[in-house]
């Protein structure tokens, strides 16, 4: 074997192993990640008034005056008032729904990417590793043909290319080439590579003492601003030794994940193992801590690990379990033929066989294991034989408000009227396959352009990888080019992976506002309750991810520039509540903090309140009977070297 032949062999091996993506995998990933994107958008939408509008803690004008980084662009900056911001979120959600449904998938994948990065750039204060994961995932998906299966685009393409004109033709099982052809692209490799890189560096960067001693989970469970109620239960009831074991198990799991994702052989086992481990790890993390999108999107990302062999195995299993259903459709009935077409298109596993019945017989009949059924029972048998059919039944029941039987009866009895309504009684125009209007070289050129753009992103991502990770030796550290910084900054696709690395934070804290209303009450506008300036007795603060990350970042010295915006927000509290007596005449904003308890201890240490902002309404005179306002506290830095 010459060197050239060896290179060619290696190249073929590599492309065959890592650059192929099954269209079914891409379709599934689109649906899962699209739904997660919708959920994440709804989560942010719920906080839009406080965090994303001009009546919130950081209006667009204040952000534009003091951008959070050199390269900051957000479509949301064009939307000011709460109503406008609602429109923006509506547009974002619409794009993500269209992406999920696979309608004009490529366009909406790009638009979803724009909205996702815009949302992140609008309030970088609340960004965490999860946001970067979302940015990366949507970016890579924009380069992949995720709409080639399980979507409206795929359905329309199939309808354009083939149509069974008789019940006999339904059984021919037309299966176009594009339905199963794997997608070969650099993006297919990158999307898996990036996943492996995340786990690799998450392991490599965890070289701190707490990981070695196994105390990490103990500390993390005591971060009241982040944890859920389940974490409080665990830290109070699970012995320290078990938590120690869990810490090491986490490290081992992440290391195993890095290996199984890249493992080139036995992928039929390695990849499902990786998916299982990812699900177990992130589901645990997701229900114990409020980390925002991180856990759920990592689970979503794991769907991209499925291989063709897994799909084939699933199809075979499904066919063996539910296959062999004979569907008899009434002859010369356009409605029956159309129903048959829909079923044949949905039945990609070949579980259904079609036959022609008498024209005056029932519209549709089914036979399975010698049992003949019609009407509702027939539909039940047929739907169950379709992929994921066991889920379709309850969904249809729910969607029709329990009127499924009635609707099916109506469909059977009123079939002639339905055919007339849709004009189906006339003969159909012949199906014409047309070529693309655009010449082939243009399409080829676009493909090369896509790969070139991916190569550019690989360059930027590699630079980020070397620049952002603590474990990279100084020899490889470098000064990034402006173009690279711009690409990474605008798209927010950093590659610094090290959650709780090298050691987890041990300082717990929250923002508390000690506000004085015009009628003499003390209130914290963030909670609406009396201010709580003691964190040591907390059993989880119940804060959402946006809230807790905003509190954690606004205290930092570099974000002092945003303190006037926070102050403005607090001063306008009575306008939001609509109660004039809620007007604040004074407030002190504190960073209320303590230190997580050491192993085998339960009580936090070193509780402290740091004054960040102190404000008194000028020329204010206290009403008779209300207590005098205290003196302004001294504003200091809340940053503390660990």
């Amino acid at each position, binding site marked *: 074997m010459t060197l050239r032949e060896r290179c060619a062999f290696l190249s073929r091996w590599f492309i065959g192993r890592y650059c192929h993506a099954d269209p079914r995998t891409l379709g599934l990933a689109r649906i899962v990640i699209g739904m997660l994107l919708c959920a994440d958008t709804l989560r942010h939408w719920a906080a839009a008034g406080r965090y994303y509008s001009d009546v919130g803690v950081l209006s667009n004008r204040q952000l534009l005056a003091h951008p959070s980084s050199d390269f900051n662009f957000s479509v949301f900056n064009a939307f000011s*008032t709460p109503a406008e911001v609602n429109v923006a979120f509506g547009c974002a959600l619409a794009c993500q729904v269209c992406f999920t449904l696979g309608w004009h998938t490529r366009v909406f994948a790009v638009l979803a990417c724009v909205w996702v990065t815009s949302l992140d750039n609008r309030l970088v204060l609340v960004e965490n590793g999860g946001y970067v994961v979302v940015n990366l995932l949507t970016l890579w998906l924009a380069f992949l043909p995720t709409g080639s299966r399980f979507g409206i685009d795929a359905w329309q393409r199939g309808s354009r290319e083939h149509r069974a004109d008789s019940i006999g033709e339904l059984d021919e099982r037309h299966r176009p080439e594009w339905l199963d052809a794997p997608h070969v692209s650099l993006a297919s490799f990158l999307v898996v590579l990036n996943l492996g890189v995340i786990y690799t560096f998450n392991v490599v960067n965890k070289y701190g003492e707490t990981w070695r001693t196994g105390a990490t989970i103990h500390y993390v469970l005591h971060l009241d601003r982040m944890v859920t109620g389940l974490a409080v239960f665990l830290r109070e009831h699970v012995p320290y030794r078990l938590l120690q074991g869990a810490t090491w198990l986490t490290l081992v799991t992440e290391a195993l994940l890095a290996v199984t994702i890249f493992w080139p052989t036995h992928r039929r086992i390695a990849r499902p193992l990786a998916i299982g481990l990812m699900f177990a790890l992130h589901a645990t993390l997701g229900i114990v801590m409020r980390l925002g999108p991180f856990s759920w999107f990592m689970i979503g990302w794991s769907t991209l690990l499925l291989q063709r062999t897994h799909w084939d195995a699933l199809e075979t299993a499904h066919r063996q379990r539910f296959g062999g259903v004979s569907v008899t459709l009434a002859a010369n009935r356009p409605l029956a033929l159309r129903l048959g077409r829909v079923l044949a298109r949905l039945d990609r596993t070949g579980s259904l066989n079609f036959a022609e019945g008498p024209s005056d017989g029932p519209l549709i009949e089914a036979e399975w294991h010698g049992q003949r059924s019609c009407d509702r029972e027939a539909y039940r048998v047929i739907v169950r034989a379709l992929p994921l059919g066991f889920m379709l039944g309850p969904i249809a029941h729910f969607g029709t408000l329990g009127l499924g039987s009635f609707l099916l009866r109506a469909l059977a009895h009123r079939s002639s009227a339905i055919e007339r309504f849709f004009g189906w009684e006339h003969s159909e125009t012949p199906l014409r*396959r047309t070529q693309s209007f655009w010449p082939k070289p243009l399409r080829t050129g676009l493909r090369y352009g896509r790969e070139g753009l991916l190569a550019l992103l690989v360059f930027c991502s590699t630079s980020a990888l070397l620049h952002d990770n603590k474990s990279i030796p100084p020899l490889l550290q470098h000064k990034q080019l402006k173009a690279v910084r711009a690409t990474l900054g605008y798209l927010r696709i950093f590659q610094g992976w090290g959650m709780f690395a090298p050691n987890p934070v041990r300082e717990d804290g929250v923002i508390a506002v000690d506000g004085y209303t015009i009628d003499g009450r003390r209130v914290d506008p963030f909670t609406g309750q009396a201010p709580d300036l003691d964190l040591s007795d907390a059993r989880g603060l119940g804060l959402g991810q946006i809230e807790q990350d905003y509190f954690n970042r606004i205290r930092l010295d570099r974000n002092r520039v945003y303190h006037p915006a926070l102050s403005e927000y607090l001063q306008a509290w009575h306008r939001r509540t609509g109660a004039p007596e809620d007007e604040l005449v004074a407030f002190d904003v504190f960073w209320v903090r303590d230190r997580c308890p050491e192993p085998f201890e339960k009580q936090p240490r070193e509780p402290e309140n740091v004054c960040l902002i102190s404000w008194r309404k000028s020329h204010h005179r206290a009403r008779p009977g209300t207590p005098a306002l205290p003196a302004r506290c001294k504003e200091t830095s809340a940053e503390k070297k660990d």
Partner: protein
Amino acid sequence: MKVLRLLGQRFFRIDARSLGLFRILFGCVLLIDLKERWAWLPAFYSNDGVLPNHVHLFQLRESGRVFSAFHAFSLRDETFVAFCVTFAFYGFFTLGWHTRLFSVASAVALVSLAGRNILTNSIGDSAAIALLLIGVFLPLGARFSLDSLRHSFASCDEHSPAALNDRTRPATVETGPGLAGLVLVLVVGLIPLAAALQQKGGAWARGDALYYALRSDRWLSAMGEFVRNKASLRTLTVWTKLLRGCEFAILPLALIPVGRRFVRPAAMLALGMVGATFALCFNYGPYGWSLLAALALLVPEETWNARRTGTYPIRVIYDEDCGMCLWLARLLKRLDVRGNVSFLGNGTVERGETADLPESITSAMVQRSIVVIDPKGRVHTDALAMSHVFRALPFGSWLGHAVALPGLRHAVAALYHRVAARRLDISVACGLGACGLPDKSSENDERGSTNSSVFPPATRLQKGARGVLTTVLVGFVFATFLAATDANNNLPVRSGLGTRGTLLGAASYLRISAPWGLWAPEPAMHNETLVTVATMRDDRELDVLNGAPPDPELAIPRRHRLGPLWAAYVENVHASDNPTFRQELRRYLTRGGRVSDEQNQPTGVNKLQAFWVSAPIPAPGEPASGLVERVELLDTGNLPRPSHAGNVEFGRGSLLRREPRSEK
């Protein structure tokens, strides 16, 4: 019933060809307008300019109701990208590619451009936005567009000369029936009418209005200056009266439902007169040009149908085995709207079926080249054949003659031979059939589906629902237009919508401020503008708005023609008592104004003064008084030399503080 249908056709229909032509013309207007704005990108659309985005948003926080996607772009480079995207939107709209989508995108872009700096808004922005917004609801891409071409290619897949010669047109959307057609014509007519109704001043009565308007340097174009210098007072008086008369006449003439072959040209003449006056002699942004583009809307169906057909009949013999040749023949068929071209396959000659063909046509000739038989029966090949093909196409005569010129003809022939020799390879590379082997699509039927004239109830319901929705939306946009017109104009007749907060809010968001009262009640009697006197570090004195020596006497009109953006901006910033706007203007000017924009770095301004200069325009026939009033708007005194200039990255406003940071 017949009368009603006729009225419906007359009022609610615009011919699809008129709409297609309007789209192309209006798209060109948008592109020219964008070019004008692009020249002032740093000044008006970036944070280096007269109004950074955050300052603008801060000023709008109380009044609100302004939206601009350009607020999201801060730096010059970011804004450049936004302009490129806008250019793409306008370009695709003009070409008619996904027309509906890009007409909406173009409308959003235009509204955003207008909303980025409300001090630059003028009558042109409002007029263009109103026309574009209503155009969104019309099938602007049904003709003369890539969409129609794609649709035609998809619906009729010809594979033989007989199919190519079949000119029966498949049923398409010929017109845009519905409220939108009427509303668009109404808007085109109402804008000049609203202006005419307010032009009640003495200058209009005397016929001096144009005389005065032509002496306001800020709004003048180069041609306007030429007209001012050359036209006699009598000419201007007649022109003034004619202009106002035309403004009054457009709407009534456009709405007369009978005799349209004669009434519509009259309406077009009036609209052309008004549009050309404002487009050529003045610089009110896209105002005059939009009116000129709207001329296309008034071309009636009868005029289109009366066009001459078969004026230059030619026969084209093409290679039947070449996919590319067939594709070009199909394209040619679609471009040949006058039906001049008939097609023959080269197989006809090879089979010897040449009874009606000149004897000089041989089998070798048709294998080697395209062959054209011109109206006189002469046979042409290569470049000359192409020349005759071009001559047979609409607007192709000049190109055809150009291709036939010696020199160019030889170059085209050489190029033609290179392509022709590789035509089969190119066909294969482009995915088209070649070598007589039909591609998959040739299995299909040649004719498109014959659209049934009777739609099933479901389709009728769908069409009806879409029609109702469109009507509601068009009605809302028109109501918004009327509300803004009511609120911002002093009209004798009012619609009563000018007090509706919702409609005024929508008008504000859409930037339809409707300042239709141009030169009303009469034009300004003073020639006014902003003049800056900047003393540079090297002791030169410059006007930093135009980079030339200051002209505080307004003696050189050319120097004060800075375009509609500056003309509107300086007027508004002078009239506004908002100190922030002036502060930002001062910041921009002290950095060097346009001079620094062009050099992309701050210039060394040592001292700067800005004056609002006002010179009274002498009455017709009287000499200039020579009195010039100068009101000082800014005086910076001696500016400190920026010590840290080397560390400041140009492109960021002084209020911006950016720190590199990783927030993760």
